């Protein structure tokens, strides 16, 4: 569903070249849930913007559903990190979710159906007439998720979507993303800097090195499909995977420091 092949990105600015991505290759199967984790400042956002077609790579290719990405692909939706800034403050919650559907030229009745369905699946059916800024951070991010779901993408990209919410809200949102993924069968690529979160959520975790970024390891997460905050995080396998990834990232950081 999503193929990333030898992706390289060099920023050219003020006579200085910065290599953000060196060589990133991995793929995400249809309906798979993959997390990308790496040390802070490892070019995660660059990677995600390139996959989302918002940034042209220096070399290498991204393929979404068999089509090479050269601009934002129509099968793909993004949930941005800055939830407070990615919702339109002059549109009510309902209109925010509806806007991309209007852009698709969808008839009104169908739009209403999809918007209400999406709002219901994130537990915000009653909040359609609220303004985004009347909602808490966690609820705003739910609206952003609803907007992505209503768009009916085949691939959903999430860029550290819970980085700015408190721990409890974060746990709720993680479970929400899991359940939405299982219900819709969407292909999900979730970028995070939180190792626990990546192991808890994904079927696979792709570990990145420090910038200039390469893939350090691609790890299967063989945890049971039914996950819950209390038990899953206590499983020996969870702890093992977590420490493994932790040591990988520590190593990646050290090599970055000595370079």
């Amino acid at each position, binding site marked *: 569903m999503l193929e990333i092949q030898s992706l390289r990105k060099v920023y050219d600015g003020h006579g200085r070249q910065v290599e953000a991505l060196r060589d990133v290759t991995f793929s995400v199967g249809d309906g798979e849930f993959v997390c990308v984790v790496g040390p802070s400042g490892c070019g995660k956002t660059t990677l995600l913007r390139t996959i989302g077609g*918002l940034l042209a790579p220096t070399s290498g290719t991204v393929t979404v559903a068999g089509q090479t990405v050269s601009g*934002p692909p129509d099968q793909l939706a993004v949930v*941005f990190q800055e939830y407070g*800034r990615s919702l*339109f*403050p*002059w549109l009510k919650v309902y209109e925010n979710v509806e*806007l991309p559907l*209007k*852009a698709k030229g969808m008839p009104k009745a169908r739009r209403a159906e999809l918007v209400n369905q999406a709002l219901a699946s994130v537990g915000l059916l009653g909040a359609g007439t609220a303004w985004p800024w009347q909602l808490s951070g966690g609820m705003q991010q739910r609206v952003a998720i609803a907007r992505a779901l209503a768009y009916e993408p085949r691939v959903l990209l999430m860029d550290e979507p819970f980085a700015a919410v408190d721990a409890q809200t974060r746990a709720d949102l993680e479970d929400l993303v899991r359940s939405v993924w299982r219900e819709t069968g969407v292909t999900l690529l979730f970028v995070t800097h939180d190792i626990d979160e990546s192991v808890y959520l994904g079927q696979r975790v792709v570990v990145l090195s420090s910038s200039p970024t390469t893939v350090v390891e691609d790890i299967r997460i063989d945890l049971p499909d039914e996950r819950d905050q209390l038990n899953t995080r206590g499983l020996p396998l969870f702890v093992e995977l977590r420490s493994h990834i932790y040591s990988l990232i520590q190593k990646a950081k050290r090599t970055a420091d000595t370079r």
Partner: protein
Amino acid sequence: MSQTVAVLKRVGLILGLPAVLVATWWFTSADSQEFYQPPLSKIVEVFPKTWTSQRIVDDVVPSLGRFVVGFLLAVATGIAVGVAIGSNRALRAFFEPVLEFLRAIPPPVLVPILILVAGIGNDQKVLVIVSGAIWPVLLNTIEGVRSVDPVLVDTCRSYRVRGALRLRMFVLRAASPQIMTGVRQAQQIALILMVISELVAAENGLGYSIVQFQRGFQIPEMWSGVIVLGVIGVLLALLLRLVERRVLVWYHGVRAAERSQR
């Protein structure tokens, strides 16, 4: 009960200073023998005789008509051109020096030039208004469009919100607080220029009437015209505030939400 007190307090705050000023004017001018500074009581006395419905039709309505046309034309052109220049870096670099020059010209000096170009009719007076009132709208729109949030730009690109929908739902809305600032300034400038355009080569209008009264030594009548102008200015500003309250509901909400978080 406490609510009534609160309302009274607000009314008192709003009307307090105007009441004091009017009272001061009234009493200090009461025995004035100065020909050019007649007692306020005298001005009030001539007011109904001066501002008859006939004069309102002959002078106030044409003035306001030219004001409305000039102001709306300035706002519409300013927004349209501002969006075009603001969304394009090359256009901006190209136009900015010229705009800075044109803006620096005081609009009243254009009156004689515009008389040469556009004659002395309504067109010329509307042009005078537009030539001054367009700048705050234009420059604020450029600034507002230029400084849209990059995350929302990405959001629009990702969700393929483009063209007219993007303009209507994103660009204009995002720039609307800045645009409204420009529109408020434009309203004040337009009113001033409405009067100025009627001081030279005019045959009707508020500014024309005031000058006529002055030349005919009808000093209380002249003063009453100034009062009419003041009242019109206040009413226009109030009207604009009502419009702004509707257009910028979200903006004031965001600001209030940010304040309460701190």
